[in-house]
């Protein structure tokens, strides 16, 4: 019992600390840059590139952060202009829902198959 309590305390401590840390940063532009594709480069993100295009996008994103736009609004703005191709994290919409759901479906199905399999073999 003592162990469980210590465990919980320690866990809470590290958790609380991490939350406090997360609140310190508002929006990290570098994170946004990494999530944007540099359209004129070969598979590079805007953050990793120093091309003309990447420089422009970096300026615009920084401006929009200053204007107080949220991360989501910035992505939406860029998608409106350049299409979904520009974001590395596909939106959850009617085209991409399979991409997001299928892996979990596989995960659940796999677990179920194993359980069924074990049940069946235990009967023998």
């Amino acid at each position, binding site marked *: 019992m003592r*162990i469980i309590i*210590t*465990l919980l305390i*320690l*866990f809470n*401590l*590290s*958790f609380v*600390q*991490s*939350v*406090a*840390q*997360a609140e310190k940063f508002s929006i990290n532009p*570098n994170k946004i840059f*990494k*999530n944007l*594709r540099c359209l004129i480069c*070969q*598979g*590079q*993100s805007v*953050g*990793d590139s*120093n091309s*003309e295009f990447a*420089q422009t996008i970096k300026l615009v994103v920084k401006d929009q952060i200053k204007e107080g736009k949220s991360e989501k609004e910035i992505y939406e703005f860029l998608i409106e202009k350049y*299409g*979904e*191709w*520009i*974001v*590395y*994290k*596909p939106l959850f919409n009617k*085209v*991409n829902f*399979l*991409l*997001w759901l*299928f*892996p*979990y479906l*596989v*995960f659940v199905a*796999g*677990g179920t198959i*194993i359980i069924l*399999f*074990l049940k*069946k*073999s*235990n009967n*023998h």
Partner: protein
Amino acid sequence: MLSNFGNTLLFLNLLLGVLIIYFSVGEFQNSKITISKKIYQLCLFQITFVIISFLTLITAFIISDFSIITVYQNSHSLKPLLYKISGTWGNHEGSLLLWVIILTIFSFFFLIYSKNHQKNYRIISLIIQNILILGFLFFLIFNSNPFSIIAPTPKEGLGLNPILQDPALAIHPPLLYIGFVGSSIYFSAAMSSLITNYSGKLFAQSIKNWVLISWSFQTLGILAGSIWAYYELGWGGFWFWDPVENASLLPWFAMSALLHSIMVLEKRNQLYFWVIILCLLTFILSVTGTFLVRSGILNSVHTFANDPSRGLYILIFLSLMIFASVFLFFNKFKNSNYGFYSNSRETFILINNWFMIFYLITILLGTIYPIFTEVLTDYKVSVGPPFYNTVIIPIVVLFLFFMSIGPRIKWIKNKSYNLNLLFKILLASILINFLITYFFNSYSFLSNFIIISALFLIISSLLDLNKSFKKKEINSSRVTSHLAFGFLILFIGLNHNFSLEEDFNLKLGEKKKFDNYSIEFTDLKLKDFENYKAVIGKFQINNLKKNLNQFLYPEIRIYDNPKTITYEASIRSSFLKDYYITMSNVDRSDYYNIKFQKKPFMMWIWISAIFISLGGFLRLFHNAKKNY
């Protein structure tokens, strides 16, 4: 001259392939229990010729014989010898020849080392492997011939892309190919096993070492590619979830699943059909990866020169392979009785496979999803690192816990759980994680779980290691790989959380301060080298806290053949961290864009990956010693 010689050898190989199949079919009438000498001899010729043809191509590269198109397009007489040689497989045609070689080598050695297995099983494996060889040989000769000539002979070659002129990339393709082309042999063996009903333990024994070889090399190959990406692409990352990287990872997951479940087949004579599926799947995924990479169907960092006819050929070949496997499999599949206890090593191996398949499907889906959206809806989407990180990382936590517990569970039926011990390990992991966040810096919610679970695996593997030392067991291969995997995840986690990245513009003489660092742009030099010019910057990195000075020298290189500009990172590696600087010019100004990164534990990430593959090699030596 060399071209004719090389071509002749390739055609001879084609003929040999046909002959081997012809005589192998003839073997069925032969009532002897051994395979006749004739076939051994033919196979010996086959492997000799294919190696000579490869040496011929290497020679053409070394002496810069520009009458051969491949050499003309990918080499230059002024290139250093190492890169002339590595240029041989640094292009589509040459690397395809490497495919054929590895197919042949594995075919030959499988024939030799499977002597104590059933004759029909060996013969049919040989036939199927030779069908694969013929398929790729046809493709090589008639579509992507490395010995095609160009007239009139150009005076000078176009040169190898400078970012490919690198030692890690020189060894990357051979390692990787031994891995995923090597998986062809258990594809053939699995097909043969289905046809001849040579199943169960014996089948497992006949392929387990081949699985180990391919898995160990695949691991090293992925590592070499990753190291190359780290210091050559100049972005400071080592894994980008790029389609080409994913293509090398897909067969790796299938192999890892196979590596585990084959033990169940060998020890308990169960899961036969599942093992067969994994055998077939591994090589099918290897060919799929090649299709995705070489056909130009995907956008990627690493581009092979694309040509739709190549894609079409590989796609047709791939479809034939898949349909043949599926039809054969369903013809032979029967429901068998299983005797599994839920609390047994077998179950945990199934759990391993469950996760492997989950990772595999996720990565496969992410890689090919853009093709589907584009073909079906005309939408262009990018599936990049944020997708994989979001879907995969939380599941890794669970996986690491299972990975720690699995090896402690006994085969057949486990009697007792040592819950108390597990609890203590968990407590220790949480404590260490807490110390890390306390003394260094805290990180995100999810990172806590990742690090705790990695520590859990490490501690539990260390205890295992200690136990096996006490018992004087020599076979510590499994512990080595598991321990190294724990460290890999731990160091990746720490690296991810404690990396520092700053991106800014500086003029010569200027200084930039941030956190505990100041960076001064002290000098800029122009230097002429044999095959490129370089603008070399000198940067003084000052760690203000420790008052430590270091100089880094990133370069902008201008290559002549072919005309390319590359940005060379300057990296100062130490045991605890790497400093990493790249510099690039800002157009139409005196400023340079500087990217500074502090990356902790980079070296340990590489070392961990080496140890993962070392585990595979250890098991291989252990198996070899046991058999002879």
